[in-house]
């Protein structure tokens, strides 16, 4: 399994998760875990997803998600392969 972490930060609004999940479903990305908090009206979400079945290059997908976040929802979306967090926080 190839995992990636999607993080979303921004002002809370209707349909953030819905829009992101629609995109993920269309691109055969399976969601493994979601955690979310709202602090002072700011939306913070982290998703662990499985990208094994993703057809396009990873960079295309992550750039598209960032664009959807900026242009359609007004939040910052970032998608990173899991290894950077594993390397930094696991011995």
């Amino acid at each position, binding site marked *: 399994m190839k995992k990636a*972490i999607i*993080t979303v930060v921004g002002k809370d609004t209707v349909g953030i998760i819905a829009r992101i999940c629609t995109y993920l479903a269309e691109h055969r990305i399976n969601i493994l*875990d979601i*955690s979310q*908090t709202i602090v002072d009206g700011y939306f*913070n979400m*982290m998703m*662990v997803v499985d990208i094994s079945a993703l057809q396009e290059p*990873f*960079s295309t997908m*992550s*750039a598209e998600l960032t664009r959807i976040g900026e242009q359609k929802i007004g939040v910052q979306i*970032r*998608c*990173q*392969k*899991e*290894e*950077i*967090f*594993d*390397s*930094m*926080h696991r011995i």
Partner: protein
Amino acid sequence: MINFREVSETNKMIDQENLDVRTITMGISLLDCADADLDRLCSKIHDKIVQSARELVKTGEEISADFGIPIVNKRISVTPISLVAGAACRSTGDYVRIAKTLDEAAHEVHVNFLGGFSALVSKGMTPAEELLIRSIPEALSQTELVCASVCLGSTRTGINMDAVRLMGKIFKQTAELTKDKDSLGCAKLVVFCNAPDDNPFMAGAFHGVTEADRIINVGVSGPGVVKTALESIHGESFEVLCETVKKTAFKVTRVGMLVAQEASKRLHVPFGIVDLSLAPTPAIGDSVADILCEMGLEQAGAPGTTAALALLNDQVKKGGVMASSYVGGLSGAFIPVSEDQGMIRAAECGALTIEKLEAMTCVCSVGLDMIAIPGDTKETTISGIIADEMAIGMVNAKTTAVRVIPVIGKGVGDTVEFGGLLGYAPIMPVNRYDCSEFVSRKGRIPAPIHSFKN
């Protein structure tokens, strides 16, 4: 599984604390390009570099996108040119042509810098090496991306004072030939004692003769991350301070290691080393001097600076070696003046002098780095500064270096602007007493007694 807090911590380091991978540097051996015919030599050098590094920048950008970590520079280091071009070059002009070939190849593969226009003369100079050194001013003024370095001494060989004397002249000539750009040529020129073979940082990167045909070395950065970590332990004991630096250095180095392994895999080039250096940039919050201030100094250069830096350097290494089995290069805290906002501030207010910087180089990696000095500083005085720094490296069995910029037409009180990662700096005063009789002596300073370990 990775949790929310860990993900936020990493992304905060990247977004707010300037965590980045400073450079992926591909080392390329040019030994197999050696040829007695200059035309053939140039075309072989060009082809080998372009073929080896064609995918370097693209791969760096892909890795950067995959992990969401900026990779600031992609660079190339090559075999010291004096070893490759000795048979083909009859004049300084011939060497300049090779420098231009290197520059063209570097432009073609879109790297930020190419290092290795170098000579290793720690005990003596061959005619080829001396010719290369004499060609440096022209080579650096006629190229954009090429960096030059000269190794003038080592703990095992002593210091080649003939070369030290010559380099005083070369620094001045390089400054003179690039005076329309604030003597920028000198920012691409460094001299070393105990030069490492696998350093990924510029201007001193070259691909040593002990290295494989091609190799990937990675230099990490992250002074801002260390500084932020220290903000949360204000007033705590030295033990807590050390633990915090060590843990942070571990995390930063692991990112470097990940990038190095990925680059190695994707480019099909063996991984060499991770260089654990804390490399500052002129960006606010990306400063080694600010770490020293966070430890409790009013300004870098205040009494206690050398001790604070010694502690920092050691803890960075201790955290870093746990994170990667292969560390090398310079590995430690860099203290360039113009590239570090806190150092610039300290130099401007008079807290930091060249003499204090010299003391600081005894306990950290590299040496007198990116220091702007008055343009009328004598050649022999520059040689004297170099000799002092080489002596520190030789006696302490460590790497030391000098990258000073005598800014032609400017003096103390003026500021010089280099731009980009090179930053800006106030011109620092140099001790005005003379050393010309000392540096004019011929020959070399012998190796220290403790170098005889056989």
